[in-house]
Structures are given as C-alpha cells and as structure tokens.
C-alpha cells in the first residue's frame, strides 16, 4: 500500500508541477471557448469602416430608398455609407462601369451597384467591389434592394406594404424541456449546447488522460527505469499507482475548471449584461443530478480506458507501435462520441438503449441519454454495474499483460504471445 502511495504521489506531483500542466489548465478552456464562440463573435462585430458607393440606378426607383436604408452611423455619429448617384444610359454604361471599376481598383471607391432599367421585371441587379467575401454585407445589400423592389411592386398593385408585413408575420415556437418531476424550463438550444460541451469534455478527457497513462508506461519501459521500479514493488502496484495518479491529475484539472465555471455562472448574469445589455436569455443551468452522473461516468470511463491504455503502453516498444496499438482503443471512444450524436436526437430507441449498456461505450452514451432525457434509474444502474464489472475484468487482464509487457523489449508482441502472457 505504501509503495502504491509512493508511486501515486510521484506520478501526480511530477505532472502537476510541470509548466505544461499549468499552461494546459489555463489554455484548454480559453481555446475551447474561443474556438466555439470566437468566429461567431467576430462576425457579430460591426464594421466601423466608412464606405463610399456609387449607384448606377437606371430604373430611378432604387437610389432614394437605398440612401434611406443605408443610414447606419459609426460610434462617433458619422454616417457610415456615402452614396453617389451616377446617371447612365444603355449606350455609355460600359464606359461608366469601366471608369468606376478603375476607381474601385485604386481604392477611391469601395464598390458600385448597377440597377438596370427593367429591374422590376428582370429581377436582376449587380454589385461590384474589391472584397466580395463579406457575405454578411452582400446579403444585407441584396435584402435591402429586394425589399425596395418588393415594396415598389406592392405599391404599384395598390397593396399597403405594412399590411403585407402584418399578414405574413412569422410565428414563434418556444421550446420547453420537461425536467425530472415535471418542471418546465424554457430551452433556447442551450440544453443542446451544454450536453455537447460536457460530452466533448468527457471525450477529450478519456483520450487525453488515457494517452498520458500510455506514454507514462511506455516511457518508463523504454528508458528502462521500470527495471529498477519493478524490483521494488509489484507490477500491479505500479499499474494502479500510475492509473490513479494520472486520474488524480485529471480530477485536479477538472476541479479547477468546474470551480471557475461555477464562479462564472454565479456572475454570468452581470457578465452577459456587460457585453450585451439588450440580450435577455436565461442563464443555462446544469441540473445537479447530471453533474453527479458526469463525475461518476468520468471516473468510471477514465478507469476503464486508462487501464486499456496502460496495457497498450506496456506492449509497445516505439512511438509508431504506440500509434498503431492505441487505435483499437481509440476507435471505441470515437465510436461512442458519434453514437452520442445519434442519441441526442433519438435517446429512446432500442439502439440507444443497447449501446448505453455496452461498457466500452456507456461512459459517453449513457451519460448522453442522462443529460438529454433522464432514462429510468434501473437502466442507469445496470449500465454502471456493467461498467464496473468491465473495469474489474480489464484491470485483471491489464495486470497480467502489464507485468510481462513492461519487460519485453525488442520485438512487437504477436497476438498468440499476448494470449500466452495471460496464462501466467
């Protein structure tokens, strides 16, 4: 027991004390949040750039309305769009377009619109600019011009545009999730996002910490430290110390993240208010039961996969081998992750029920079912029991393979050899 603690302590401290751990702990959530919300947020940022446009309006119905519609101002109150009407006829259109294109090319003009005389019938208009990738603006221009033409047509037909707007009003469909006990809670998609984030963390953790264990075993093996260690303790103590030591590192990291997340949730209201004063969305909350199950399935899933990864680490002799041998293990985690997407939409099908009972999948699949739609407690319990049984089996298996594997050098073990090790 003491020796197990010694190994556990070393494994834990030697990891937590590294710069990598500190940086990883700080960077991972930032990266994750940045990657998931960053592009959207950046896109939301309003461009402050003042734009100069020329409008060749041969229909004579668009320009005035366009000036009215493009009335955005910069934060200092300056108008953001400067429009200039250019008169053209079918005869000199080509020459005028040439001139304007040259102006755009020399950055004296940001772009120009060409509205043909028969725009109402042909439904066609043109926009020329240097940067045509700003599709958010492009769509805005298109909508504005469409609206102008639509309104014009409606007026021509003696229909009040306001009336049309009223008659074609869209209907809002609010979604409510029925929680345990029949409580209702409005859900605007956050339930999905939270399920997804937790799933993603679970998935990442299983792979990341699993690979840590594998590398730790494998490095000890190749640096031959293991010969000195195994002469002082049982291989099983080494295996257990490693798996639990790295696991404790994972828990530490998660504890830090969860407490930061909890603090953020506490103050989330004021933070959101700071960034988006007008936004009124309910702060998503994670039910306590889901959190508890998250921790349970995290720990059990970790034990299962860390044991498998340790086994892989003890069998291989080189990085390439490690890549190859870890693949069969990884495929189960990835498979479970994909199944989770199916389960989010169909948590009640027979397939969902079956895969949430299979130990190699259940840490992810059963957790998904719990988080989208609490399944009967009996099913959860069964999956936990099966999972624990599988963990015990794999620890037994791994201990056998580990003790031989860590001292086997040179060649890669073949399947019959591995089976032979089991008979010891």
């Amino acid at each position, binding site marked *: 027991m003491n020796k197990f603690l010694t190994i556990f302590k070393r494994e834990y401290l030697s990891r937590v004390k590294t710069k990598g751990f500190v940086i990883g702990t700080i960077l991972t959530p930032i990266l994750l949040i940045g990657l998931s919300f960053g592009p959207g947020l950046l896109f939301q940022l309003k461009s402050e750039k003042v734009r100069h446009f020329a409008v060749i309006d041969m229909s004579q119905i668009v320009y005035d309305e366009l000036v009215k519609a493009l009335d955005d101002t910069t934060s200092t109150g300056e108008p953001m769009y400067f429009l200039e009407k250019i008169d053209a006829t079918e005869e000199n259109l080509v020459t005028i377009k040439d001139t304007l294109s040259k102006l755009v090319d020399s950055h004296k003009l940001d772009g120009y619109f060409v509205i043909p005389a028969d725009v109402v019938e042909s439904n066609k208009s043109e926009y020329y600019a240097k940067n045509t990738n700003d599709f958010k603006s492009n769509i805005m221009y298109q909508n504005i011009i469409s609206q102008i033409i639509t309104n014009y047509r409606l007026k021509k037909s003696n229909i009040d545009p306001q009336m049309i707007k009223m008659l074609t009003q869209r209907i809002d469909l609010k979604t409510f999730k029925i929680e345990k006990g029949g409580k209702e809670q409005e859900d605007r998609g956050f339930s999905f996002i939270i399920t997804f984030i937790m799933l993603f963390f679970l998935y990442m953790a299983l792979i990341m910490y699993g690979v840590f264990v594998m590398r730790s075993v494998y490095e000890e093996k190749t640096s031959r430290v293991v010969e*000195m260690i195994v002469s*002082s303790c049982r291989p099983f103590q080494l295996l257990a110390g490693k798996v639990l030591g790295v696991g404790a590192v994972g828990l530490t990291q998660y504890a830090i993240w969860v407490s930061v997340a909890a603090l953020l949730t506490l103050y989330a209201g004021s933070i959101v208010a700071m960034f988006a004063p007008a936004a009124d969305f309910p702060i998503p909350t994670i039910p306590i039961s889901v959190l508890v199950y998250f921790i349970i399935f995290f720990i059990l899933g970790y034990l299962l996969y860390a044991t498998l990864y340790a086994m892989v680490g003890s069998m291989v002799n080189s990085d390439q081998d490690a890549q190859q041998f870890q693949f069969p293990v990884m495929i189960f985690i990835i498979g479970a992750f994909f199944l989770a997407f199916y389960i989010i939409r169909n948590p009640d099908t027979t397939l969902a029920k079956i895969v949430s009972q299979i130990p190699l999948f259940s840490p992810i699949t059963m957790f998904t079912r719990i988080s989208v739609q609490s399944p009967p407690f009996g099913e959860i319990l069964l999956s936990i029991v099966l999972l624990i049984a599988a963990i015990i089996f794999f620890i037994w298996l791994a201990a056998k393979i580990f003790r031989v594997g860590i*001292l086997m050098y040179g060649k890669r073990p073949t399947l019959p050899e591995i089976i032979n090790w089991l008979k010891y």
Partner: protein
Amino acid sequence: MIMEIIIPDKGQIFILDQPNSQKLRDKIGYLPEERGLYRKMKIKELLIFMAELKGMKAAAARKKIDYWLERFDLSEWGNKKAEELSRGMQQKVQFIATIIHDPELIILDEPFTGLDPVNTELLKDVILEQKERGATIIFSTHLMEQVEKLCDSICLINEGKSVLKGNIREIKKNFRRNSLLLEFEGEAKFLHDEKLVQKFTVTDHMTEIYPAEGKTTQDVLIRALKEVAVTKFEVMEPSLNDIFIDTVTG
C-alpha cells in the same frame, strides 16, 4: 526471478533463508544491467522516490542521500534533472539507489560499464565496504580481473547452466596444477620428458611449462637447474580467464 520479474516454471526460491516474499524485497538492492532514470526528475527527488519504494522514510533517506552524493562527488548535481547528467554520473546515481536502504543482499549486474578508472576504483571501494558491512553481494560481470579482485565465490554460467562454482581459491587450486614460466640458456632436453612435462609453449624467449601428472613446478625447476642456465623463473597461477575459456570450450 528473485525480483519476480520472471516467474519460475516450478520450484521455490529461498532468500536469506526465507521463502521469497514481497517484504523480503526491501532487503535487496538490485542494479539491473539495463537501467534508466526518470529523465525529468531531480536527482534528489528521484533518490527519495527510490528509497521510499524500498520502504524508507523520506527524512532518513534524505540524510543518506546527502552522504552518498558527497561520497560519489555528485553533491552539486543533487538538484539537477537526471537528463543533464552524463552516463557515468547517472550510473553512480543508479548505484546509490541500489544501496540507499542498506540492503542485506545486493545484486549488481555489470556495475562498472561506462565508468572511468577513477570512478571504477571508487565503486570498487564502496562495494568492498558494503561487504565489510555484512552485505552479501551477487556480482555479475564478464570481466574476469574484477572477479579475481572482488569475489570470494564464483559461479560460471554457460548457456544457462552452472558449469563451475565454489570458492575462488579452491577453484584455482583444483582447476589444474600451476605452470612454470622459464627463461633459460642452453638445450632443454627435459622439456621432452613426458614423465615430467605434460606440455609446453614457447613465446618470445619465455617458455611456459605444465608439469605432468604427479609432478609439481618444483620438480620441473629442479630438473631445469641441472640442465640449463635459468635466467628467470616464475610460478604461474591459472588466471580466471584461462579457467573460463577452458571450462566453456571444454
């Protein structure tokens, strides 16, 4: 097998007169031939870890570690990472890890490889000290001169079988009679007397003579003195090297 790295097909192992057990393991220090250190760990922390694995308390270990680091001229490296040390230094650290807990049985597998002459001497001294302390040392090597200098008993292993074992003096005495190394002038008819000389070899101007059954080097020398003018003579003990080669090649 003692360390349970390999498992016996059958039979039982007794160490220090007790059946092999995990507890006994703490009384053994084992320096494997293939050895390594945690590259990223500081030497002192690493040695404390190793000592704790042998059941020592960290405080006691720390004192011993300071002593041994001093002894092996590694004091200023105590807070350096293992990967910064040279191979010889790492080897000394590994040796410290082997004996840090004052084991009763020390098993050393090729402890001298990669050491310079100064450190070889140092290590030899420490090994002999450990012997004085009362530790039993099992020492595996291919270098016969070290065996002659360090060992009391030997066991020659060839192709996994013990071919020769026992006290080193006894073995030398029993292995074969000594030979006589002779430098002389004149015609040595006695060399061809099969009753006296079993065989002889000539190198440069020295002749090594192996006495026949029942004769000693003394007998050969007396006869030689009568026939030729002896300018130099020496009684040769068989070296362990010869014994090794003779035994293995049959």
